[in-house]
C-alpha cells in the first residue's frame, strides 16, 4: 500500500485525546530528568526509549476502528485489535531506527557539533525505520 497523508484523521481525534498524549509525553520527559538526576545517566538513558504514549495511541487506534464499524452496525472488536496490532508491528520496526538514533547520539555527540548530531540522528532514525518497513512490505511470502 502507498504511504500517504490523511488529514481528516485529525478531526476524528477529540480534544481530551490530545490532552492525554500531551500529559503522558510531558510526564515521561519530566520523569526521565528526575530519574537521571537521582540514578545517573546510565539508568536515566534507558527511559529515553520508554514507550511513553504507546498505550494511549494504540488504545485510540482500536477505539476509532471499533467506532467506525459500530456506525455501520457491525461489531468492530476484532477489527480494533487488528488495527492496534498493526500499529504495534510498525512500532516494533521503528525501534530499530530508535536504536540507531541512540548509537549516533552515543558515538558522535562527544566529537561533533550538537545540532549536526541531532539532525544526523533524526535522519538516521527516519531512514532506518522506513527501510525496515519497506523491506517488510516487500518480503517474499
Amino acid at each position: 500500500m502507498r504511504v500517504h497523508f490523511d488529514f481528516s484523521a485529525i478531526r476524528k481525534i477529540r480534544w481530551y485525546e490530545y490532552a492525554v498524549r500531551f500529559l503522558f509525553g510531558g510526564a515521561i520527559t519530566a520523569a526521565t530528568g528526575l530519574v537521571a538526576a537521582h540514578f545517573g545517566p546510565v539508568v536515566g538513558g534507558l527511559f529515553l526509549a520508554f514507550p511513553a504514549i504507546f498505550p494511549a495511541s494504540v488504545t485510540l487506534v482500536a477505539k476509532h476502528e471499533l467506532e467506525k464499524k459500530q456506525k455501520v452496525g457491525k461489531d468492530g472488536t476484532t477489527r480494533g485489535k487488528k488495527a492496534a496490532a498493526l500499529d504495534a508491528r510498525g512500532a516494533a520496526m521503528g525501534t530499530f531506527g530508535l536504536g540507531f538514533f541512540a548509537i549516533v547520539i552515543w558515538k558522535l555527540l562527544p566529537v561533533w557539533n550538537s545540532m549536526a548530531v541531532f539532525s544526523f540522528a533524526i535522519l538516521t532514525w527516519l531512514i532506518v525505520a522506513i527501510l525496515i518497513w519497506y523491506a517488510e512490505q516487500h518480503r517474499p511470502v
Partner: protein
Amino acid sequence: MGPLIFRFVVGGIIVSAFSILGDVLKPRSFAGLFSAAPSVGLATLGLTIVTEGKLYAAREGRSMIAGAVAFFLYACLCIHLLVRNRWGAMAASVFSFSAWFVGAFGLWFLVLK
C-alpha cells in the same frame, strides 16, 4: 521546579507532534513507526546538553540503545497478546510494560552496570 515544568511542556509538545504525525499517516503499520519515534529522547537530550554537557548526554544515548531493545520486546509482547491471546488494546499495551522493564533492566544489569 522551573526546569521540571520546562521539561514537561517541551516533552508534551514534541511527543504530541510525533503522535499527530502518526495519526495522519497511512497505512497503519507505517504510522506505527512514529510510535517508536525518538520523541522523549529529542525532548530530553537537548535539555541535558544545556544543563549537564555533551558527555553526560552521550552516556544517556548509550543506555538508550538498551531501552530501544526493550521497546522492541515490549512491542513483540503487545502484538502477541493482541493477536494470539485476543487481549484488549489497553490491557495488552499496559501489561507489556513488564517486557520493557525486564529487557531494559536486564540489559542494564548484564551490559551497562
